[in-house]
């Protein structure tokens, strides 16, 4: 279980904070027990009408103990939280490092957004493992043992009773709760997921449901699953409550037993009566310190579940093959050849590419066209070595891709993906992703070329580029690629949200910069393809045609038909 190793490692790194926290927690716990035992002793002493000064000494001790307890509690809180956040930071970086080789492969699922949010949430619930699961029992056992030691000075039997109580409260009661909880919380999760899916379906399919008169039925279904969820959540709450009540009763029972046993020992003459109140107070207080144990099972289960899910996600990443040493020459335009390439995504039921043959000579320009879902994007992903083909061979400069280091391909490629990601920061931050130092002048020039002359380098970009329009995002992505440069251009529908005029302006700049480079362009429009060296037409994962614009139009085949359909389109289509 690698994620637990990561967690342990992270906790070990924070050992200094944890040690201070534990010391604080221990002193605070003992302080509480001593405080109340001392008060009990104080009261009992008064029965013998002692001189006033002993009383004053005792009272001062009580006061000092109170202060000590408050101070060390403060230190405990401070350092446990400090450690928790440091652990979180370490967890994040470790998991990030593990996830890097896995992207986009395993992280590419239908709802990858949810998956990533889940990873973030799971890593966050792992942080509770320290504060709520690992830490409390350790400190508690220390406090208990100290109390037992103290009690054993007066009576070994009462000390034994406390040990028994400790075993029940720290180990047996949580184990019982955990046992029943596993099933119930599993059911709660299931019901939650069901309600979430149903609600999402109703909202996305609202129009269809309304027109087809199925809305009432869906509403009824949703209400039922909401009821089911409420009942399961209540059951889970009751399970936790049972544990808490059991915990309370056990601590009362132990205090009561101390009373009875103490009474018996006093009667037998083996214990002085003056200590009875003190021991009872000690027993009552030490169990109060144990209150955190009652919520422990809930956290334990949550973090175990999180760890398990993370393990499932991360597992394959560890088996990532080592990258070969050979690298792609970055000073010349590469040639590309795909022969008999087939590929199927792990989560898909039909192949994305079937027996694809493509030859793109060095320095030539190729366009790939086809309907959405015909496999165009997959070709670019394979060229970038983000996935490996199931069958067939891809060569760059006549070297098979599997013999090339992936980073060397990325370094010589200027890429625009269909969905570009932008980070929180400035336009400059989002341009300089490659780390190269370009002058201010050059950067601004790139912005102008990409059709963003009105943006300044210091303009803010929100997370995921939320403050940019779709068109601006595409232009910024193009600017990023142009700033980076390279002799291999891979562009996936880079201008689908732009109007024709802007598109042509940008293409002019782009083709000027890419003159002599190898370029693969996936396009959604069939216009402006006359200058391409070849057009590759795809349908359902296969290549149906390839050739120059003139050849394909003369042939009156698939491309010609697509062109005819496009001619029919008016409105948003353009």
């Amino acid at each position, binding site marked *: 279980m690698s994620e637990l190793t990561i967690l342990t490692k992270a906790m070990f790194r924070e050992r200094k904070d944890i040690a201070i926290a534990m010391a604080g927690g221990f002193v605070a716990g003992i302080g509480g027990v001593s405080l109340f035992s001392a008060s009990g002793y104080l009261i009992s002493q008064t029965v013998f009408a002692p001189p006033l000064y002993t009383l004053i000494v005792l009272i001062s001790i009580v006061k000092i103990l109170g202060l000590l307890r408050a101070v060390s509690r403060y230190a405990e809180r401070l350092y446990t939280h400090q450690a928790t956040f440091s652990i979180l930071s370490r967890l994040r970086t470790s998991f990030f490092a593990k996830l890097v080789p896995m992207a986009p492969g395993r992280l590419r699922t239908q709802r990858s957004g949810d998956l990533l949010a889940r990873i973030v949430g799971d890593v966050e619930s792992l942080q509770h493992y320290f504060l709520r699961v690992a830490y409390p029992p350790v400190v508690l056992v220390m406090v208990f043992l100290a109390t037992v030691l103290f009690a054993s000075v007066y009576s070994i039997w009462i000390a034994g009773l406390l040990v028994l109580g400790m075993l029940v409260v720290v180990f047996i009661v949580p184990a019982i709760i955990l046992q029943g909880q596993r099933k119930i919380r599993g059911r709660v999760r299931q019901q939650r997921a069901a309600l979430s899916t149903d609600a999402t379906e109703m909202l996305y399919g609202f129009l269809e449901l309304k027109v087809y008169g199925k809305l009432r039925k869906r509403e009824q279904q949703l209400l039922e699953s909401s009821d089911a969820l409420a009942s399961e959540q209540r059951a889970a709450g009751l399970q936790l409550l049972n544990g808490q009540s059991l915990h309370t009763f056990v601590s009362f029972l132990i205090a009561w037993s101390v009373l009875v046993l103490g009474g018996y020992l006093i009667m037998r003459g083996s214990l002085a009566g003056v200590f009875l109140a003190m021991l009872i107070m000690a027993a009552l207080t030490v169990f109060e310190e144990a209150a955190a144990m009652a919520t422990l099972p809930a956290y334990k289960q949550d973090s175990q579940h999180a760890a398990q899910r993370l393990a499932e996600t991360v597992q394959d990443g560890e088996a990532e093959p080592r990258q070969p040493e050979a690298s792609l020459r970055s000073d010349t335009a590469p040639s590309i050849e795909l022969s008999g390439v087939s590929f199927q995504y792990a989560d898909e039921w039909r192949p994305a590419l079937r027996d694809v043959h493509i030859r793109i000579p060095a320095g030539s320009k190729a366009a790939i066209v086809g309907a959405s879902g015909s496999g165009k994007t997959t070709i670019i992903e394979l060229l970038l070595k983000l996935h490996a083909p199931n069958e067939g061979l891809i060569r760059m400069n006549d070297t098979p891709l599997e013999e090339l280091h992936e980073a060397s391909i990325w370094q010589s490629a200027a890429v625009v993906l269909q969905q570009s990601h932008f980070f929180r920061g400035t336009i400059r931050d989002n341009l300089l992703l490659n780390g190269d130092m370009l002058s201010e002048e050059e950067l601004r020039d790139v912005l102008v070329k990409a059709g963003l002359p009105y943006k300044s380098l210091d303009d803010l970009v929100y997370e995921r580029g939320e403050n940019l329009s779709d068109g601006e995002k595409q232009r910024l992505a193009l600017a990023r690629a142009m700033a980076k440069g390279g002799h291999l251009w891979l562009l996936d529908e880079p201008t689908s949200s732009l109007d024709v005029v802007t598109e042509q302006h940008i293409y002019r700049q782009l083709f000027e910069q890419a003159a002599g480079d190898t370029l693969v362009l996936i396009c959604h429009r069939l216009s402006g393809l006359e200058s391409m060296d070849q057009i590759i037409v795809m349908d359902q994962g296969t290549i149906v045609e390839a050739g120059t614009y003139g050849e394909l139009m003369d042939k009156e085949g698939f491309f010609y038909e697509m062109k005819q*359909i496009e001619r029919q389109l008016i409105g948003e289509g353009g």
Partner: protein
Amino acid sequence: MKRKQTLLSELMSEQRRSMIVLTGVSLALGAAIIGQAALLSEAVNRIFVMHADLSSIVFLLGSLLAVMLARALLAYGNGRIGLYMAARAKRTMREKLIRKLANDSVSATAGGQTGGKVSLMLDAVDEGEGYFSQYLPRMIEAAVIPLLMLGVVFAWHYPSGIIMLVTAPFIPIFMVLVGLKTKKKSEEKVEQLSQFAGTFLDSLQGLVTLKLYGRARSQEQEIERSSLAFRDATMGILKIAFTNTFMLELIVMLSIGLVSLELALQLVVFQSMSFHTAFFVLLLVPEFFSLLKNTGTAFHSGRTSMGAMRKVEQLLEERKGEGQTGTERTTVQPGEEGLMLGPMPPNIQLNDVRFQYAPDSFKLYVEKLTIEPGGKIAIVGKSGAGKTTLLHLIAGLLPSDSGDIQLNGRPYEMYKRSSWFEGMSYITQHPYIFSGTLAENIAIGTNRAVNRSEVEQAAASAGLAEMIGGLEKGFDTLVGEGGRGLSGGEKQRLALARAFLNQPAVILFDEPTVGLDVHTEKVLQRSISELAEQATMITVAHRLYTIREADLILYVENGLLLGSGKHDELVECLPAYAEMVHLQRKGRAG
């Protein structure tokens, strides 16, 4: 509007009985706590001071154990009531949300943010639970039990009572102060915090980009840096909270210390009280303060819950404000009774119809529009002109703000709603595939009972036969969420199959703009005209052949019906229309 009541007060009104029971149980719990202290001190007194034999106090010890058991059970009871109230409140909140969302007009759901709404229904409602399961029980306990204790202590030994009475108010006051101060500090830092907190997710989402640009390594440092910055910012806030808690604990300690000092003085110096009483008070005082301290934590969780409930309330309210007249109209209308529409396409007429999504958004206005039965209507216009809105208005999917829509010469509202929708099929740009089998997904198109061969027939007409035939499980293949994914073209054909099964009198069709494969395009062209033979067909058109073949073209611009007629007529007399058709084609040909 009589609905001035807030969501919380509405939820509370259901809980009245539980609140009474809660108060009763809390009273009993208070009695048990006091009883426990009394019996325990009595037992110690007997054993220690009076040297009583154990056997002589068996009854006393037995009662003590019984009271302890009772106390645990009563506390359990309060917890149970809290959970019951929480379950009930959550059920009510979700029911309101579900009903609201299900009864919204199409415009409201088109607003997107599906994820946000779903998370509201799940997470915000769950967060609201704390108010009922924690806040209310703790608050009632804190209101009832300490008073009971004070009364008893006053009766037994009033000086301690006075100390308790004087120091007690400091605790809730301090708690509230802590809360407010922390809140202020965290509000100051909220921007910073959210920035740091988002970096991890942001980096994961951009992982591919980071890899391609060779920045994955350096991003790791960025994550560490922002996580640590987040830690430091949060610790800044927590330090304030912890310092205040520290002060609070000092107050409690001080108060307990004061009471014990006073007790000791009474016992030794003035010799005015018994050990029994002193021990009893000493047992009760910490319980008294810890109950008060509980209110602080409860107060905190109560606030969080109320914040979450406000979010739920906002969604409920927001819908109400939006298109108010419209929503009222749809709910006021009987809808489920009234005239039936026959199987023949009706004559549809719009008079002076106005519609607006929100006060500031664009207006749609149709002065007069008649759609003959069996007509082929094409709605044309630039993007954002209001084409889909017009389609929805004609279909009765959006309620008009004013004016009227008539079917066969009678107001739309007089008809039974389901009879109107039953005769209608709607093929959207992005048809939604429900999670279920292919057969179920096709059968959703009609309310009739259909057999398998009818479904197969419909699928064949929509050009799906080959694809489905190639599947191992055929029509029983699971699709949609958790099932097999379909391509855009296949979804479009599936929506067609739904329409074929329904044999509608009216077809609404939002033509897809891009991205269809040649096969689907051909199927669409062929089968739409087949479907439309017996039906009225209203299309938001993006294809020239659809427009050319239309009996009536409606050209929409900025929400206004600028012109209507046949293609050739419009090209001649409506420059805007001619320009649009011309320009688009020219742009593409280049």
